[in-house]
């Protein structure tokens, strides 16, 4: 192809104190192309995209869209120019509804004031078309009927299942992501930047998204797709640009390159894809949970009678679409969520209704799904966060006084053993300053170093770069070898299949399917995750019917 690129970013330079985030990067995207942007955390992908979206101003270089030079002083300029972005960390207002979030900043006046005829006659025309009334209505009224139906259509068109009237705080992470995507689509952009959009989607949903994206690209929309997942680059992108340490490594057509080559370009060394799973003798049960029932934030039952037994040296993988009770299950067995029924026994001790402290003291470790909200205190030091559970331990002084030099030393050990990067001084660097992967390593280090009997890991590798994913998965396997019972909740089916000894599929708060990775039929598992009624119609339901007997 020799056509003029739609977007050209030339010689982009952006420096932050002490770091060159973008070091003379050239980047171009063609019209109607899905362009992958690949790189480890801190490689400069987000910075480059934030420059394109007007959030940062570059120190050097130019941006041309459709041949015109762009001066981007704010995201509003970028949106006006036709650039939309779906952020990795959601930019939603929890207290507002889906529709309100989507129209935010792009509001329409209430229908009664609509300027283009079609009035429902609630207001006389003379008043309605009065410029003063119009101006006031533009500023102070909010009409949601028209946007709501448009959003509804958009959602249907791209296969998003979102209730436009629901408040955002009531939605789970996956649904919130869909709202973010809808927000960009709603603004009729020509180029859309997706920052790891599939991180929260199931394989089926991701495929649906890919279909939608392909559809958008066919209609001439350009898409920049930031991701860590190499198979996604292969599956969806036309070309891919790899960044490493702020520099561009290269842009290649996806068809011409293998995953292994991509990984090497990205990390700068060879990456192992297959994990060695040593045979481990499975011991006595560490967790016995019977008939667990719990409610979600909205007071609706999210867990409807779940039985779960985990034995020493066993990884039990729980697969499912986000929002089917995984978060509630993880919190229940980590002692953080009140049960409405059921019992939890850890190592023979009945912990039903016990405080979170009792769970911690009985060697239950927990890696929460939302690292920043539950996993750490972002504005406290790495030392505080590394010792957040173990500061009670007698080794840091008995009585009321705490041995701070001891805490510091302990934190330094964890940082070193788990290769947490970006920490020059454990008391000086705040947890929130670490990249996603390094923060996750720190949290995992803290939870594993206590030598737990039971480890509950909810989405441990979400939004984490390839190098850290490798490390985290190996750490989980090492725990298995040590004889820890591990509950692994993930929406990444490959991860579940690679690591687990046993796989359970959760759907609407119940386990609907159990299998072992060696015998698992991926199609079947995918189907069970969506309640056995996939889009494939006849074939799918026939398959579901055939498997129904053993599943339920």
């Amino acid at each position, binding site marked *: 192809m020799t056509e003029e690129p739609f977007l050209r970013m030339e010689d982009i330079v952006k420096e932050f104190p002490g770091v060159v985030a973008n070091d003379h990067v050239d980047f171009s995207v063609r019209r109607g192309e899905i362009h992958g942007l690949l790189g480890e955390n801190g490689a400069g992908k987000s910075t480059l995209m934030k420059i394109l979206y007007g959030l940062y101003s570059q120190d050097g270089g130019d941006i041309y869209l459709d041949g015109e030079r762009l001066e981007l002083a704010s995201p509003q300029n970028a949106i006006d120019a036709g650039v939309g972005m779906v952020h990795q960390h959601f930019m939603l207002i929890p207290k507002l509804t889906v529709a309100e979030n989507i129209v935010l900043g792009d509001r329409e006046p209430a229908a009664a004031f609509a300027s283009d005829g079609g009035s429902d006659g609630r207001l006389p025309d003379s008043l309605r078309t009065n410029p003063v009334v119009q101006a006031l209505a533009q500023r102070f009224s909010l009409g949601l009927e028209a946007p709501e139906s448009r959003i509804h259509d958009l959602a249907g068109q791209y296969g998003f299942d979102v209730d436009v009237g629901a408040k955002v705080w009531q939605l789970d992470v996956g649904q919130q992501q869909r709202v973010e995507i809808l927000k960009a689509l709603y603004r009729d952009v020509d180029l859309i930047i997706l920052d790891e959009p599939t991180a929260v989607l199931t394989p089926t949903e991701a495929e649906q998204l890919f279909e939608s994206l392909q559809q958008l690209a066919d209609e001439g929309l350009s898409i920049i797709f930031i991701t860590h997942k190499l198979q996604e680059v292969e599956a969806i992108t036309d070309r891919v640009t790899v960044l490493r340490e702020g520099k561009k490594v290269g842009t290649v057509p996806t068809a011409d390159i293998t995953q292994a080559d991509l990984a090497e370009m990205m990390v700068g060394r060879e990456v192992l894809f297959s994990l060695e799973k040593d045979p481990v003798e499975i011991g006595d049960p560490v967790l016995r949970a019977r008939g667990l029932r719990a409610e979600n934030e909205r007071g609706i039952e999210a867990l409807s009678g779940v039985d779960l037994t985990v034995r020493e040296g066993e990884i039990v993988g729980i697969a499912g679409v986000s929002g089917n009770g995984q978060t509630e299950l993880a919190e229940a067995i980590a002692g953080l969520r009140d049960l409405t029924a059921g019992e939890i026994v850890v190592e023979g001790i009945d912990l039903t209704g016990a405080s*979170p*402290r009792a769970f911690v003291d009985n060697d239950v470790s927990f890696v929460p799904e939302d690292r920043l909200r539950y996993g750490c205190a972002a504005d406290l030091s790495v030392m505080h966060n590394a010792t957040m559970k173990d500061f*009670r331990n007698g080794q840091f002084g008995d009585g009321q006084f705490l041995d701070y030099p001891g805490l510091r030393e302990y934190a330094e050990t964890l940082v070193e053993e788990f290769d947490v990067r970006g920490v020059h001084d454990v008391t000086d660097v705040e947890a929130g300053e670490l990249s996603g992967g390094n923060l996750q390593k720190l949290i995992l280090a803290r939870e594993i170093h206590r030598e737990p009997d039971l480890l509950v890991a909810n989405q441990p590798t979400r939004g984490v770069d390839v190098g850290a994913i490798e490390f985290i998965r190996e750490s989980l396997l090492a725990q298995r070898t040590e004889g820890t019972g591990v509950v692994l909740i993930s929406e990444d089916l490959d991860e579940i299949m690679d690591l687990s000894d046993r796989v359970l599929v959760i759907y609407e708060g119940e386990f609907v399917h159990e299998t072992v990775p060696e015998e698992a039929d991926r199609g079947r598992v995918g189907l069970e995750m969506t309640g056995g009624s996939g889009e494939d119609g006849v074939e799918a339901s026939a398959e579901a019917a055939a498997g129904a007997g053993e599943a339920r």
Partner: protein
Amino acid sequence: MNVELDIGAREDVPTWLVYGTPVFTVLAALAVSSVALVALDVSPVAAYSVMFVETLTSEFGLTETTVKAIPLVLTGLAVYLPLRAGLWNIGAEGQLILGGLAGTWIGLNVSAPGYALLVAMFLGAGVAGAFWAAVPAWLRAKYDINEIITTLLLTFVALNLKNYLIRGPMQGGAGTFPQTEQFSGAATIPSLFGNVHAGLLVALLMVAVAYVLVTQTRLGFEVTFVGSNPEAATQAGISRYKVYILVFVIGGLFAGFAGIGEIAGVQGRFRADFEPGYGFTAIVIALLGRNGALKVLLAGFFFALLIVGGSSMEVALGVPAALTEVIQALVILFLITAEFFKRYSVSLRVDRDPGTSPATRTGSDA
């Protein structure tokens, strides 16, 4: 011409800025205030020299400042400690009043040998202040009721309780003035040097207690964690309930000490119009000193200086009382603004490029 304003977060705060900002900001606030002074035909130089130089060089000024600083530091700590746990104690004034009342009652009605009476008075005052703070803490910990509202409203309850008690059951002394009996010698806090009473030792001791509590103990670790991220703290098995109750109880204790220190050290009796407002100034003190107990101590002394210097200026130069309050408020305002400049760098760039339209760029890279 193209003017560009760039605001970016600082990665590192230069050392000169850390120590320089308070000095610069105070100077800037004084510069702005001098406009008002000039308008009133008062020489700013004379005014400020009375306010600061004379206050800091005369024995009277130093004594007054120190005496004023005692309750300010103690109530400052009463706000500071809950603030470390992410809670707002807006009601230190009420805890101070209640502490004063309880201590006064003990001072007037109990007899004990030597300093034992004073110890009993302080203990009683501390317990009363702690109790008054424990109520909102319990409501917050148990039922999630906003502590800002409950602590503030309980202050008014305390003030009215005081009005009733001092005009009613606790009224005493000659005549029917709304005040209690004068304290006996045993119930009066002895002076340390000059007119400075030994309450200063209590204040300094409590600064040390708060410092050690926050930086050296397990409870301090828990307080810091709950203050930073209560949800993560719960996940780590830290009891929010315990932390919330304890910071308020200890804070109320400090405020109670402030109350009895002021009554038994300065006033000599409890008058019905005793409403010093220290508990409200304490909120600003705690905000300025929120990074550590020692900073609370410094901020307490600084505000004492502003108050004492302000009233000297009022007397010496006939400046209206309202203006000294304006100066105090400006200093506070400038200090808070300075926090912003400490964290963000602002650079102004002027391009001589007539071709492009002016643009203002803002962006933060937190």
